[in-house]
Each structure stands twice: as structure tokens, then as C-alpha cells.
């Protein structure tokens, strides 16, 4: 390894700390959000540096990309939403200096203790169970992370799909409110250049997503990365007005929303037929079943992310597609 690398790591760490501090200490919302997106990208660099490029991709796409889009959308909505009366007088009195020092003391103390503990723990090397190594290397699916996500800890992934669905349904409760401005397209119609970029990006994103999905069984990638890419495509379609919001959820969309969770849970129950345990894969068709579940999850993730961003109960393709120049 190049001798300069410790310096680089320290600089990377300091950069992350500085960015994080700027995020929490900045005055304006917009500044904080943009700095947070930069923070996410630098974090992705740190992960790539630690030898986890697929996690870095997921962080950049899902965390910095989708979260960033959601946050920017919320900032924009702050201007678009109707009448927010300024409350008479400050809502909360500025925190007393005693309270401020208490917060500093808590955070400083916890940070020091955590940094020391984590550095010390990271140096130790607990034994990785040999059973785990054997199970991962002898599995019909080649990518170790996919083995964990779909088989060994598949139950967690199932529940994670439930969290995704619940996030949308939780938002759905709030959506009935008439005063909430949806996500409007840009003020004077759709800019032609963005539209042509979307047209151009569609095949590239589709192919990349399918590639990520397909390669997930043997190399970094899988349903979540692919679903996030498709979700990003949905976000672009929504921004350029190719997708319109609806105030109800059509049956097909409902099916798309619950498909991943439903297929996974149904599989868990069905597997009692060929084995004693739920969620165990049939010996003959492990890879095929895994791929089916991943496909269903990819569709659900894409649909849910698009709907979460759109901030509406449903969506449909725009009747009259926007014409180019």
C-alpha cells in the first residue's frame, strides 16, 4: 500500500467531520441539505476506500441521491406550500446557556468515549464463525451479501420491505390534506433540455438497472440498487411531467406496492411445504426462487420510491407526452 494512505484516511475523516459539523451548525435549511448531500458523497468515497464499492454505490444512489432529492423537495415545498402564518413571537425561547453547555457536554463526552471505544474495537479481530464461511461459500448464489440478504437473514429483508411499504402508507395518511401542494413541475412548463436528457437517460438507466439486478447473484448489485435506479428514473419522469399525480391509488399500483413484500411473505409460508422451516429455499431451485423474489422486490422498491418522492397517492403516465423542441 502507498505510504501516503494514512494521511489520506485522516484527511477523509477530518473532511467528513467538518462537513457534518457544517450540516448541523448551518443556519439555513437549504445550505444544510446541500451540504448533507456532499457529506453523503464523501461518505461513499470513504466506503469505497474501505473496500466496499457496492455499499458505496448504494450509499451514493439511495442515501445521497434519493434522500437528497426528498430533502430538496421538502425545502422547495417550504416555499410552495400555502399560508404559513408566522407565529407571534419566537416559538421556543432560545435555549439557556446552561442547557447549551449541557448539550455540548453530552455530545463531547459521548463522542470521545465512542471514538475511543470504536477505534479500540475495530482493531480487535473476533473469529468469524467457520459455519458462516462455509455456508456463504457453498451457496447456490455466489455474491456473499446477497446470500445474507436473501437467505441467511432473509427475514430482515422481508421486514425491511414492510418498513418501505409502511413509510408510504404513513405518508398516505397525510396526503389527503387539500392544502399540501404536490410536487409541481417547473413553473413555466417543462424545459426542453431536461426532457431530452430524460429521454436519453431512460434506456441507459433501464439497462443499468437490469444489469445490476441480474448481476446481484454473483457480484455486487441486487434488488435494492436496481430498484433505487428505477426509482430515480421515476423521479426524473415525475420532475419532467411525464408522470402525473393521482389522488387515489389504482389497483395496479397497489399490487406493485405490495408485490415484493407479498411474494416474499408468500414464499415464507409456502416453504413449509418442502421443509420444516419457513423461508428455506428448495434445494433444486435456490437461484431461481431468489431471482423471482428479487425481481418482485425491485418492482416494489421502484414504485414505492417514486410514490414517496411524488408525494401523491398515485401516479399515471401523462396523457399527452411532452413534445421536444
Amino acid at each position, binding site marked *: 500500500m502507498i505510504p501516503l494512505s494514512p494521511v489520506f484516511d485522516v484527511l477523509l475523516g477530518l473532511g467528513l467531520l467538518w462537513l457534518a459539523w457544517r450540516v*448541523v451548525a448551518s443556519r439555513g435549511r437549504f445550505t444544510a441539505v446541500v451540504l448533507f448531500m456532499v457529506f*453523503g458523497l464523501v461518505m461513499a468515497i470513504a466506503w469505497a476506500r474501505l473496500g466496499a464499492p457496492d455499499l458505496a454505490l*448504494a*450509499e451514493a444512489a439511495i442515501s445521497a441521491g434519493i*434522500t437528497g432529492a426528498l430533502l430538496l423537495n421538502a425545502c422547495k415545498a417550504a416555499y410552495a406550500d400555502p399560508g404559513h402564518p408566522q407565529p407571534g413571537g419566537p416559538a421556543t425561547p432560545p435555549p439557556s446557556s446552561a442547557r447549551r453547555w449541557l448539550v455540548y457536554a453530552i455530545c463531547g463526552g459521548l463522542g470521545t468515549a*465512542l471514538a475511543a471505544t470504536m477505534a479500540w474495537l475495530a482493531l480487535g479481530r473476533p473469529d468469524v464463525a467457520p459455519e458462516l464461511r462455509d455456508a456463504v461459500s457453498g451457496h447456490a448464489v455466489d455474491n*456473499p*451479501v446477497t446470500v445474507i440478504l436473501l437467505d441467511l437473514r432473509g427475514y430482515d429483508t422481508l421486514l425491511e420491505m414492510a418498513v418501505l411499504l409502511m413509510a408510504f402508507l404513513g405518508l398516505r395518511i397525510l396526503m389527503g390534506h387539500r392544502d399540501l401542494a404536490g410536487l409541481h413541475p417547473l413553473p413555466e412548463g417543462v424545459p426542453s433540455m431536461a426532457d431530452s436528457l430524460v429521454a436519453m437517460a431512460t434506456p441507459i438507466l433501464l439497462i443499468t438497472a437490469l444489469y445490476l439486478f441480474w448481476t446481484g447473484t454473483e457480484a455486487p448489485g441486487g434488488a435494492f440498487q436496481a430498484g433505487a435506479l428505477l426509482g430515480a428514473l421515476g423521479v426524473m419522469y415525475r420532475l419532467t411531467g411525464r408522470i402525473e399525480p393521482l389522488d387515489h391509488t389504482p389497483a395496479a399500483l397497489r399490487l406493485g406496492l405490495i408485490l415484493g413484500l407479498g411474494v416474499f411473505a408468500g414464499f415464507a409460508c409456502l416453504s413449509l411445504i418442502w421443509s420444516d422451516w419457513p423461508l428455506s429455499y428448495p434445494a433444486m431451485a435456490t437461484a431461481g426462487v431468489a431471482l423471482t423474489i428479487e425481481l418482485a422486490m425491485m418492482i416494489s422498491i421502484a414504485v414505492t420510491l417514486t410514490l414517496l418522492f411524488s408525494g401523491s397517492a398515485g401516479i399515471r403516465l401523462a396523457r399527452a407526452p411532452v413534445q421536444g423542441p
Partner: protein
Amino acid sequence: MTAVVPLAATAGLLFAIGLYGMIGRTGLIHRLLGANIMASAIFLFLVVLSTRGIEASADPVPQAMVLTGIVISVCITAFALGLIRYLRVMTGEDELRRSTRDADGQSADD
């Protein structure tokens, strides 16, 4: 690997900075960003852990935990943003009042 110690220590400090954002600020967006930084700090620590596992390749368990965790944190963030936005539309405020007065609203039964 040399990256382990500085980045693990960074993770600990990042968590504290995120916590400051969460309890030291009043603006809800800033508090939410603080929570996201806390989550990122934990994920960074888990990624650090994944480098020291099986010699040839990384330890896949922390990596799977990070992937699950990222998706969950995006979901919670999206839901929280919806609540924050709705709160602003209804009350015009970007923060939670620290009032001691008891809520006098009605629940949805009636």
C-alpha cells in the same frame, strides 16, 4: 488495513455531531439531518468492521446490515419529511413547541 483506526474514530465523533444536531438544534429539518448523520456514522463503523472479517473477502454480515439500514433510514426520512411538511402547513412552525400545556385536541373517534 490502515484505514481502520482513523475512520472508526471518525464514526464515533460523527455520531456525536449528529446527536448535537438532533438535540441541540430546534429546526426540524436540521434535527432530521442530525439523525441521518448519526445513522451514517453507525454505517461507517459497520463498514469498517466488514473489512476485518474473512481474510480473502469482506465480512458480508455488516455489509448486509448496512444495506438494510440504509433503506430503512431513507424510509423513515421520507415519512418524517411528510410529517414536518404537514406540521408546517397546519401550524406555520418549523419546530416543536416546548410547551408544558397539555394537548387539548380531539382524537379521530368522533
